[in-house]
């Protein structure tokens, strides 16, 4: 009896192992930045290009850094979520306008509404590389000390906001941050 059950158990084990592997999304590359300090920004602001924005400007409160571009189709769907997030919470949303044209970006905000506290301009994608961005949209949740605590690859959904972002923000507050 044992000579049949042992191979069967091994086989079932392998099936479960591969099934788990197949169900993972290969596009979700784990970020090496989780629990590390956010990289520097040091680029001009979209609306006031003579002013630059730095990492130090994001400290003191939790903040969401959202990488977006007017040419990015998925960003359009995500925009609704960001608007709702801005409306319903106090969370500052910092845009990182990635490889976009200034005019197109401003037009986008005029047409669709502006959920951002402020927007950094990454015209040539350099900041994107520093932050490990490999596709737009991506979003980073920073704790009040400027440490990246969560990264969303692809559009934010309200489900992610409720299940991931808000509980994390709550936990920052209980930590007394």
């Amino acid at each position: 009896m044992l000579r049949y059950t042992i191979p069967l158990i091994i086989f079932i084990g392998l099936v479960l192992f591969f099934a788990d592997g197949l169900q993972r999304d290969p596009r979700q590359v784990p970020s090496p930045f989780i629990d590390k300090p956010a990289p520097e920004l040091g680029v001009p602001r979209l609306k006031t290009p003579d002013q630059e924005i730095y990492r130090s400007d994001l400290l003191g409160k939790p903040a969401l850094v959202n990488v977006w571009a007017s040419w990015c189709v998925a960003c359009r769907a995500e925009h609704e979520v960001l608007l709702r997030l801005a409306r319903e919470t106090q969370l500052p949303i910092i845009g990182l306008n990635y490889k976009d044209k200034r005019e197109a970006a401003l037009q986008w905000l005029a047409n669709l509404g502006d959920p951002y506290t402020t927007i950094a301009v990454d015209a040539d994608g350099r900041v994107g590389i520093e932050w490990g961005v490999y596709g737009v949209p991506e979003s980073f949740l920073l704790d009040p000390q400027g440490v990246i605590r969560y990264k969303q690859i692809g559009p934010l959904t309200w489900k992610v906001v409720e299940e991931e972002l808000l509980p994390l923000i709550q936990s920052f507050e209980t930590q007394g941050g």
Partner: protein
Amino acid sequence: MIRMLLLVIALMGTQAFAADPAIFEFDDPTQAARFQQLAEELRCLVCQNQSLADSHADLAGDLRREIHQKMQQGATNEEIVDFLVQRYGDFVLYRPPVRPTTYLLWFGPALLLVLGFGVFIVSMRRRNQSLTPTLSEAEHRRMAKLLEEEDL
């Protein structure tokens, strides 16, 4: 239809040149070869089954530019790879590093081979034992007799 196909093939041809490292200038051919080798060892995050050297993705172009610039500044291969791993994780490497979390990946197949060979040897031994006939005195005599009869 055929014309369309030809057009598509022609366009693919021109696209391939977009990824040609020749657009970067190097001081000498060994530098160019080093660049090419580095770009082939690193994975493009966008088209994940392509290397940075092969990928036409925008990001791959940016990262090639970054590698080129770092080389010009005198960075070693190790420094360049570290730069990318810090930002994109081990995933950018086609050859994963050997560390406890990847031991199974690196040594799993060899382990399976050794285990399988062990099981094979053990089962062969067992089979041999069960096949070796053990006859009683009476059976021996009877067999000898039967064989003798056959000879006749």
